[in-house]
């Protein structure tokens, strides 16, 4: 499978390369480091804009991409592309469609004071419109030789669609342990909170059974229900491996085959220490081709 890495020559870009390398090493995929440049066109101004600028910009981008490729481990096949588009998100989606890629990887960490992730304008634009799953690398992510576990957020009620199937299939194919989690924010309301936890536990047991039925008998699959005053607290209550991955579904509000980060997913993102993959609603991993054709 091909992974599009949205490359920018800064920490976010390096985080993305590290995550892309980890995922590709794990699943045997190859990377396409893509740099998005603004379309060259003359601005309507009195002073002619140096036309040589576009060539200088492309040369700089090639230089940056060389640096980016140098970050990819030897054994992971990687190439680089320059794509011209109106926006970063739009360019990455075009690249993913043109290359029939299965995943777009970007660095989403805020390099500042607040939190590990912040859905910046770029990530947010991508999460609202990508037809393929989007992987978000947290700040300062380091590449790993592979993944030690895949965690799938299954929600508290039925309706997580084929996200669950995607995660189970991925875990089965790559022979890595699967953990199913259900996050509950109890807030301050005691009795209602208890009921919510009970409901989540019941749902978790159901999905665990389903998962166990789909996986080979020796495959490790666990389930956890975490609760806290807020979703953020619930996330922090769970233990995380450095080299694990959270898979989460896009909001129910999302258009068919398009990503949209729901409010719960957004909250998870804020306190999550590991990378996260957001899977579009109704996305099927084998059907990446189907979505590519539609917008081709």
């Amino acid at each position: 499978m091909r992974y599009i890495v949205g490359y920018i020559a800064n920490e976010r870009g390096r985080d993305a390369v590290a995550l892309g390398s980890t995922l590709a090493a794990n699943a045997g995929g190859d990377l396409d480091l893509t740099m998005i440049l603004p379309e060259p066109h003359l601005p309507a101004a009195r002073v002619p804009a140096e036309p040589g600028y576009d060539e200088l910009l492309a040369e700089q981008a090639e230089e940056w991409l060389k640096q980016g490729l140098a970050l990819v481990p030897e054994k992971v096949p990687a190439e680089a592309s320059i794509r011209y588009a109106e926006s970063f998100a739009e360019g990455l989606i075009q690249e993913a469609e043109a290359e029939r890629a299965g995943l777009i990887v970007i660095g989403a960490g805020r390099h500042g004071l607040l939190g590990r992730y912040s859905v910046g304008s770029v990530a947010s634009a991508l999460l609202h419109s990508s037809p393929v799953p989007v992987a978000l690398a947290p700040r300062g992510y380091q590449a790993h030789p592979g993944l030690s576990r895949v965690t799938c957020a299954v929600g508290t009620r039925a309706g997580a669609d084929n996200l669950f199937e995607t995660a189970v299939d991925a875990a089965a194919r790559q022979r890595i342990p699967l953990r199913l989690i259900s996050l509950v924010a109890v807030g301050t309301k005691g009795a209602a909170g208890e009921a919510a936890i009970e409901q989540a536990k019941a749902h978790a047991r159901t999905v665990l059974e389903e998962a166990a039925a789909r996986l080979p008998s020796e495959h490790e699959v666990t389930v956890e229900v975490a609760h806290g005053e807020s979703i953020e607290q619930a996330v922090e209550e769970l233990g995380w491996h450095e080299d694990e991955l959270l898979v989460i579904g896009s909001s129910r509000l999302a258009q068919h085959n398009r990503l949209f980060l729901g409010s719960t997913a957004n909250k998870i993102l804020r306190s999550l220490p590991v990378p996260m993959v957001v899977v579009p609603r109704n996305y099927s991993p084998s059907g990446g081709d189907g979505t590519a054709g539609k917008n081709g």
Partner: protein
Amino acid sequence: MSDTTHVSEGHELSRKGLSENSIGLIGAVAIGLSCIAPAYTLTGALGPTVREVGVQLPAIFIVGFIPMLLVALGYRELNNAMPDSGTTFTWATKAFGPYIGWMGGWGLVAATVIVLSNLAGVAVDFFYLMLAQLLNNPALADLTNNKPLNVVTCLVFMTIAAWISYRGMQTTKKVQYVLVGFQLVVLAWFIIAAILHISNGTAFDHTPVSLAWFNPFAVGSFTAFAAGISLSIFIFWGWDVTLTMNEETKGSKTTPGRAATLTVIIILAVYLLVAVAAISFAGVGETGVGLGNEETQDNVFAALAGPVMGPFALLMSFAVLSSSAASLQSTFVGPARTLLAMGHYKALPTRYASISPRFRSPGFATVMAGVAAWAFYAIMRFVSDSVLSDTITALGMMVCFYYGITALACVWYFRGEAFSGARNFVLKFLAPLLGGIMLVVTFITTSVDSIDPAFGSGSEIGGIGLVFLIGVGVIGLGVALMLLQRVRHPEFFHGVTLRRGTPVLNLDE
């Protein structure tokens, strides 16, 4: 541009998604008009031009187009001969070597920095005027005369525009088309309203239209004539962009030529009609809204739109404010890219060549252009009595300077083929030579005349005209910076990075 280059062994790098960014005739004309921003240009240029040539305003507008046309023809030849290879800086370096090339690039950057400060200044005036009109509180319009507040407001505008440009965002074509259409409608409204006042006998100072207005020889002196030409160059500045849009226009090769012709016909019609309507309505007297009044010459529409258009003057405020704000933002791109190219060829410290990784834009160069433009404006606001008109006059000089260099660079670059055929003789030799000489003569005459403290708006420091100090100061500063760079990093000046007659962009390969 579907070429593929190899980054390193085993890695293949392709460039994808380059769209054929084509625009049709109407689009090209709209962009041409958008470059010129007629509502902004007229409000800034009408007053100073009337001050120089009085009622011969229409004549000087027509004559002023001639050198612009001649230079633009040569400009187009250079652009065809060296596509993708820059503008004044690279062309003049390749024709005349590093020193004149450096000064040509400096002239372009300086002119743009000055126009940025003027655009922001006009935007500030109309911002407060529009607030006053919207809230029906005339006192708000006077806030623009509060110098510290004015300078701070300008800083805010400048920062926003530079920030948008730094983030690599561009005004979309659709927004440009709407703004241009709106400007034309409002200017037409102004013309019709002025004519109605004149025919109803309610004009401020009705001055009957006379053929003499169109006679350039009726201008009093050569000093006034040269100053008028310099200002006219400013009002057509940007028109040449339509001529060089070859790559972007769709259809035949004739589209850019047609677009340029149509643009200039529209722009001349608008300028002449507005000029005639304004003089006819308000006269050139020195009181009230008369165009000769030094108090209002700085910003004519701010004073004249109310009496002519009544309550709908609000539309004029909005037209000028929107066109100057859009221009302010798009104009940042030009100097930033020229500074970046100069940094790349080591004609400036290399940090000017840095591209922001996050936004893929000329970061440092954009910030420096913004800082320079604001500092220029802030200084001018305090030393000049009539900041907008003084900057416009100095601007005309700067444009003459770098256009003159560009035109002569064309003549020199093509000297080998100048006499091979009538077409080459006219377009590569005669037209740019005549245009270049006219501009250089205008530049020198205006420079010498502006030493007189009474020149222009009469702003002076120590008995020397302010416009002269700006013009000479800016060029002198350029020479000093050039020599400093020559001492620190002589590569460019030794022809290591970019030399005469060699293809550009072959650095470090």
